């Protein structure tokens, strides 16, 4: 049944955002949009406020807002890893991000792979980093669609077959067109609306809803009771409101691994490189945790949904209940219709902002590190910009095709894999900011080993609750950890995050192979960067003018 009031509010807010998306091309305009610095990085001049909204809108996506409470709803305390993840994130990335900004600004780098190319003079290593970034980003975009569709289906647009996906398709065509036209300025401007709506909705939700269900004490009581019930599929409790002896290590390594991974994603760096200077970034590292507070509060709404007795909606396209609808269902049942409409618009627009930035980041990678490197070496800046605009369309429609023709569960699995594989670029992208001791061929070897081992371990993980034998999650029981058939922790039921294990092995390989290659005096490529490049700030003469002709 279609919820007309909710849908009307949603459509009105969506139209406002659409107009803003088109107007954005004229906003803070520099020298036209036919250069990647302009289309792909918004002119590299965003100040503190815009950066805060843009990066906040980029990192805290609709999918996060839908999936984290859903995880709490299904598994309990484990889902709360999102809070430590976003608390340790900023102290960890504070220093490397500043170095990345400076060196990129001096040399005109647009992507992390550009930096690797300059640092090691290796187009192969840059290619691996670019491909990893694109592959990890694609399912992430698809997941934004899953978040958007959860909202649309809750509002009653829950048709079967292709017709059921039509509203999603319409929303995405609009997004694709204004991103094509306005580039990064579109999500930057829309992020203001998105974040204000999200703050409003979540503050109202965490004040109003707990009181309605007898306060936090009753809510935690209800959650504890429900999570303790044995699951019909496994006969074991689904979770608990505290960590157990077996999942504490998973909680720690997942929080740490996710924090290390986040700024390796190309879309995070796009937000960083679009800012004006180092102090803008530093101020943002202080102010961005405001979103973490919000995310923690939102996570607790998963328990509120338990207390409210919310039931996930069955997705008519797949025929299975979709736990990602749990927060929309909670809002639908507990808020007046008009405010539920506002809440849904917040989640819906919350999907558009990161989807736009991610598609721009993937398009930049394609253009700078594959098209320009291998297909059209003499491409002019305006040819690059045109190529990137087209690539952003391809990326977005690829993501739509994913949702239309493939089970959404597949996107979720791929995003899980994405987190594991993007971590494998940490030595080449993040450690290389500090030292060139790691040898370029060692980085290639470590990447290969980390990738292969990570995928192998993910393959080993079953999910009995979903009746799947492989790729059932990111929590590996140490019992299953194997190195060429050797089980160092046989019998242990303690769980650990796969990405972390793969990264440790990757680092080991990189260090050992580097030592060997240095001993054999194998050449380590040319370094286009110099020491002071890593500290250059706005106003410095070292900076390359924005929208300058880029040379590789």
């Amino acid at each position, binding site marked *: 049944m279609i919820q007309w009031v909710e849908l009307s509010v949603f459509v009105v807010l969506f139209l406002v955002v659409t107009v803003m998306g088109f107007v954005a091309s004229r906003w803070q305009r520099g020298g036209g949009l036919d250069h990647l610095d302009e289309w792909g990085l918004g002119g590299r001049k965003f100040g503190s406020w815009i950066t805060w909204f843009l990066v906040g809108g980029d990192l805290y996506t609709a999918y996060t807002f839908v999936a984290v409470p859903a995880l709490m709803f299904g598994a309990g*305390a484990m889902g*709360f890893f999102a*809070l*430590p993840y976003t*608390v*340790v994130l*900023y*102290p*960890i990335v*504070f*220093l490397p991000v*500043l170095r990345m900004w*400076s060196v990129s600004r001096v040399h005109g780098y647009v992507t992390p792979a550009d930096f690797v190319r300059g640092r090691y003079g290796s187009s192969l290593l840059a290619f691996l980093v670019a491909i990893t970034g694109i592959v990890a980003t694609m399912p992430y975009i698809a997941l934004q669609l899953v978040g958007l569709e959860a909202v649309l289906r809750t509002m009653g647009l829950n048709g079967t077959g292709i017709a059921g996906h039509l509203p999603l398709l319409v929303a995405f065509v609009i997004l694709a067109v204004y991103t094509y036209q306005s580039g990064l300025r579109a999500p930057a401007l829309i992020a203001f609306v998105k974040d204000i709506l999200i703050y409003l909705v979540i503050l109202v939700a965490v004040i109003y809803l707990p009181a309605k269900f007898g*306060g*936090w*004490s*009753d*809510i*935690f009581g209800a959650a504890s009771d429900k999570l303790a019930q044995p699951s019909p599929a496994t006969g074991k409790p689904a979770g608990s*409101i*505290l*960590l157990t002896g077996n999942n*504490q290590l998973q*909680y*720690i390594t997942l*929080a*740490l691994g996710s924090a290390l991974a986040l700024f390796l994603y190309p879309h995070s760096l796009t937000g960083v490189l679009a800012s004006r*200077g*180092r*102090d803008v970034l*530093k*101020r943002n*590292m*202080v102010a961005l*945790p405001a979103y*973490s*507070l919000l995310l*923690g509060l939102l996570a*607790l709404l998963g328990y509120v949904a338990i207390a409210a007795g919310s039931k996930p909606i069955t997705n008519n396209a797949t025929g299975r209940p979709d736990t990602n609808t749990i927060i929309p269902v909670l809002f639908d049942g507990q808020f007046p219709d008009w405010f539920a409409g506002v809440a849904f618009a917040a989640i819906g627009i919350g999907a558009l902002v990161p989807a736009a930035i991610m598609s721009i980041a993937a398009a930049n990678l394609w253009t700078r590190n594959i098209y320009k490197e291998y297909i059209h070496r003499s491409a002019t800046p305006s040819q690059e910009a045109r190529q990137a605009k087209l690539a952003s369309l391809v990326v977005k429609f690829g993501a739509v095709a994913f949702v239309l023709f493939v089970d959404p569960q597949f996107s979720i699995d791929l995003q899980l894999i994405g987190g594991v594989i993007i971590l494998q670029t940490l030595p080449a992208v993040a450690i290389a*900011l*500090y*030292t*060139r001791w790691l040898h370029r061929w060692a980085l290639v070897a470590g990447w290969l080993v980390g990738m292969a081992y990570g995928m192998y371990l993910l393959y080993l993980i079953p999910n009995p609750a979903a009746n799947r034998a492989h790729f059932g999650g990111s929590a590996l029981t140490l019992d299953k950890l194997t190195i060429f058939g050797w089980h160092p922790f046989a019998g242990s039921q303690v769980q650990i995050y796969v990405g972390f294990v793969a990264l440790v092995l990757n680092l080991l390989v990189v260090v050992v192979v580097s030592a060997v290659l240095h001993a054999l005096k194998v050449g380590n490529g*040319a*370094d286009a*960067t*110099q*020491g*002071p*490049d*890593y*500290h*250059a*700030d*706005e*106003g*410095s*003469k*070292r900076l390359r003018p924005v929208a300058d002709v880029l040379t590789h």
Partner: protein
Amino acid sequence: MAAREGGSGFRWSPWNLLLLVPLLMLVTPWFNSTDPVLFGMPFFYWSQFLWVPVGVVCVLIVYLRTKGDGEYAPDADERVDDLDEGARR
């Protein structure tokens, strides 16, 4: 280009050590308990919220202490050898 091998421009400020403090939040046994309950919320949950301001304060102090540490100097090109002084303006 091998001469550029040491060209990472590494600089150090002791204030940076403060950035390690929030990592203590990852020691789950410290807070994995129900008691003491606050406003009906188990310790596990409300104590982790307290780490948000801890993280903010640590990053804020490092920001204030390293403000303007970037290289503005127009003659920066000539000063490659002076890098380790961490020139504070």
